[in-house]
């Protein structure tokens, strides 16, 4: 890796002071993406601002019918949290299948959502559950947050402090892992919350997206039969040696049906 200045601020304000106005600075939460990128010399930040000292950003809280999960909460802690398992068990299940135990014990929800890797799992949950992304400067709706490939609504000097998830009546996540990396090649999160039914897809496209036709069908009849004839167009989907766009489009249907079945159990 190239040389950089390393900082470990003790407060959000200190972290923001280091990040704001410095385009070459990079925040690091769990480092599960940034560290390998640095080691391969694919990134050359002037400063790495380690958010690991911001203890107030880690942890799960239940506020009425809402789960508020701190940005620095590790995947492993989400997976094993009694509160998450009770309020949105599908979210705990998703977190328990991210990467491997080492990744789950380092990687954080805020880091994953802020990075918006097209193959990350969390964005599907955030969109399907119609969660709210809370930052040091304000709030973003899930739909407005994810802008495109590795692109989010986060502005200069803005970091995710927490994500708030409304309770789901029904929810499930089904992932088709890339055979090599085991990242989501196609991951479908289906949820029925107070704001309706949502079907969010990760892995298949440049960024997480919703399948409105399935949402409408499931709103009328929450069963896999209701969506069995709905085809997702392959246009614009990712294509690589593990999956053509057509294959990914097909898998969205398969995973969506399986997610609905799982959510219905």
């Amino acid at each position, binding site marked *: *890796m190239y040389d950089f200045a390393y900082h470990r601020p003790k407060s959000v304000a200190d972290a923001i002071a280091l990040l704001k106005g410095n385009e070459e600075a990079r925040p690091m939460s769990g480092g599960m993406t940034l560290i390998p990128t640095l080691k*391969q*010399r694919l990134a050359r930040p002037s400063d790495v601002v380690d958010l690991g000292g911001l203890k107030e950003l880690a942890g799960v809280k239940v506020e009425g019918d809402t789960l508020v999960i701190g940005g620095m909460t590790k995947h492993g802690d989400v997976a094993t949290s009694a509160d998450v398992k009770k309020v949105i068990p599908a979210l705990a299940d998703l977190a328990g299948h991210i990467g491997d135990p080492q990744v789950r014990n380092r990687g954080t929800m805020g880091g994953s959502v802020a990075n918006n890797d097209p193959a990350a799992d969390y964005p599907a949950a955030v969109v399907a559950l119609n969660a709210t992304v809370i930052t040091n400067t304000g709030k973003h709706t899930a739909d407005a947050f994810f802008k495109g490939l590795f692109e989010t609504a986060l502005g200069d000097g803005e970091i995710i402090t927490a994500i708030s998830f409304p309770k789901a009546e029904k929810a499930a996540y089904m992932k*088709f892992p890339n*055979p*090599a*990396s085991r990242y989501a090649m196609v991951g479908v999160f289906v949820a029925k919350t107070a704001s309706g039914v949502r079907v969010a897809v990760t892995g298949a496209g440049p960024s997480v997206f919703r399948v409105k036709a399935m949402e409408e069908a499931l709103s009328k009849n929450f069963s896999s039969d209701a969506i069995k004839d709905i085809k997702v167009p392959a246009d614009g989907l990712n294509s*690589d*040696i*593990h*999956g*053509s766009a057509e*294959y990914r489009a*097909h*898998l969205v249907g*398969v995973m969506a049906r399986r997610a609905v079945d799982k959510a219905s159990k």
Partner: protein
Amino acid sequence: MTSATGIGARVLRTEDKRFLTGTGRYVDDLPLARATYAYFLRSPHAHAKIKSIDISAAEKSPGVVNIFTGKDLVDAKVGGLICGWVVKDKHGEPHKAPPHPVMAVDTVRYVGDTVAMVVANSYDEARDAAEAIKVDYEVLPANIDLAKAFDKGAPQVHPEAPGNLIYDWEIGVKADVEAAFAKAAHVTKMDIVNNRLIPNAMEPRAAAAEYDKGTGNYTLWSTSQNPHVLRLILSAFVLGIPEHKLRVIAPDVGGGFGSKIFCYADETMVCWAASRVGRPIKWTAERSESFQTDCHGRDHVTHAELALDKEGKFLALKVETIANMGAYLSTFSTAVPTYLYATLLAGQYTTPLIYANVKAAVTHTAPVDAYRGAGRPEATFVIETIVSKAAAELKMDPAELRRKNFIPSTAFPYQTPVALQYDSGNYPPIIDEAMKIADYPGFEARRAEAKARGKLRGIGFSSYIEACGLAPSQVIGQLGGGVGQWESAQIKFNPTGNVQVITGSHSHGQGHETTFAQLVHDRLGVPMDQIEVVHGDTSTTPFGMGTYGSRSLAVGGSAIMKATDKIIAKGKKIAAHLMEADVADVVFENGTFKVAGTDKNVPLAQAVFAAYVPHNYPLAEIEPGMDENAFYDPANFVYPAGTQICEVEIDPDTGIVEVIAHTAVDDFGNIINPMIVEGQVHGGIVQGVGQALFEGAVYDKQTGQLLSGSFMDYTMPRADNFPSFKLGYKVTPCPHNPLGVKGCGEAGAIAAPAAVMNAVHNALAPIGVKHVEMPATPLNVWQSIQGAQRAAAE
């Protein structure tokens, strides 16, 4: 078996203590004072002219000690890397041998080709400096697609190999085979690809070298499977350092699978540069360098035809293969698709006529050479796939068709039509046992049950033959091999009775330290903890050929047995003297010399002590000391054989193939340590299933970029992909080596791909899928299903 730790005992591996506690010593662990670190600048292009290399900025980079380019090697008159096996083509001409410069001079020929070596005070400084080297490339079209390598207009890799052809080789009489086909009742034809694999040993390749200015001696530490052969090549062909001035040490090595047999550019450079730099040099490949520059394996495109009579007896087999050599001919590359492939095409069968034609191609990809099984997996895949296809076409049971054509046990030694003479074997009981273990009769019920769950279940057979422990040396020489194929052993007792067993083979995961100790313990009665197995250092071991081709026990173990014979013979003379008996009356039992019919005895340790402290010793007749060497050159290959049965379930919605059960019944001859053998079989099956379902090196067909260049894109088989394997054994001892052993290291990888793919085809046949290529990834299977559905709709 003489004891709980002798031949046949499941002795826990003694070397595992250091491996499992992190106390092994690998090349990268070496603490070398004043060490420098090397970084290799690699070609980012598959094919390009080097117009210029500007190192001026890089030389000023902090910490840089030296920078070398191909031109420096030309100036120093360093030889190129060699191919050590001369294959003669069908006209009797030696294969085309394009030069293989250690570092590229004016042309790069694959992504990863070595362009410059930077030596600096730290690895990061070396890498920083490498980024400052300016190479002006003129990018040229690349020859990547093997099936089109010989096409007119295909980009040429070497002027010395016109049309990209290295050799056009054949075995068998084509006209006889054609005549048999003309009379056949049925002909099965197929076109198959044997997918290209990247070895991925757990420890990447590494090298370190030190030059002693006072003595002029070089020491090279390398992750080599055969340090003496590496030294021989570097001395005699590449660097010209006299053999006695070059010590090669291969310490603990974390896996090789063949990829560490060969002499590579980077270790050559590290050794050569050590004297110029004047400080030790260390280099360890990054994983991405391993992907790009380790020799890859397999990579064949084959058309095969099998002729059968109306009863299903095989009449003749015809095989045409294009084999990829990559950009340069690696150390043993030419032999793999010829003498290690086509000579195995009889398999376990009495096929009387076989013709094979192999054309070797150069392409703008990494060199291809031996990888676990080396030629034999490719042969088994051809035979066992076409036999199962023929059975399906003839609506015969695949086991029945195999049985009908097995070489009968009474026919051994059996001369095949493709040069080899099988020494021993008994195939029908093996397949019977495998079918019993796999519950073959219950398969249709399991298929029906799976169908009710929406899954497609299939079963597949693979009955393999392997020729391992290449031998004898004279035959290897006649076939063009450049080295002998014997092995050495030395048994060196210390005065206090403990012993060093020194072998010319090399362990890089196989468990030699345990297996060889068991042999010596069993034979000489020395306790296991009094035996140290030594290997891997040209200065402390007799010249040896190293480890590859499942040879270490059959050849190296046999050498150890010969050395124990000499120890016992000498010990008898000493004991006879001490017991005042006639040597003819002395017997050796359980570690003690005895005179039959008396209570006189001399434990071996006492004879050893007498040999080193010869106060009462027959000095007039024998020399002091107890230290014996043996060299063993086998009379023939050994021929392990077996049958694997794989059972899979396919999810037609996703294309995912799941291995539900995998059975392997093998004849490895006598078995020394069943636990180690099981480990070898398990690992082999995993690699074979890996080839069938997961692994595949993919180059972009235009640019030649390696698309599967990391674990993010190259799918390794993992523990959760597998059920527990079911193993069984049948034993026909090898008749020509003293242990009666065959070889087990490659068998799993040889047999498994065909077993898996036959199961996949069996599962998919009911829905009309005719053919799936390896690897049968979810995408590949799904697309095959889609294709069949489209074909059915038309």
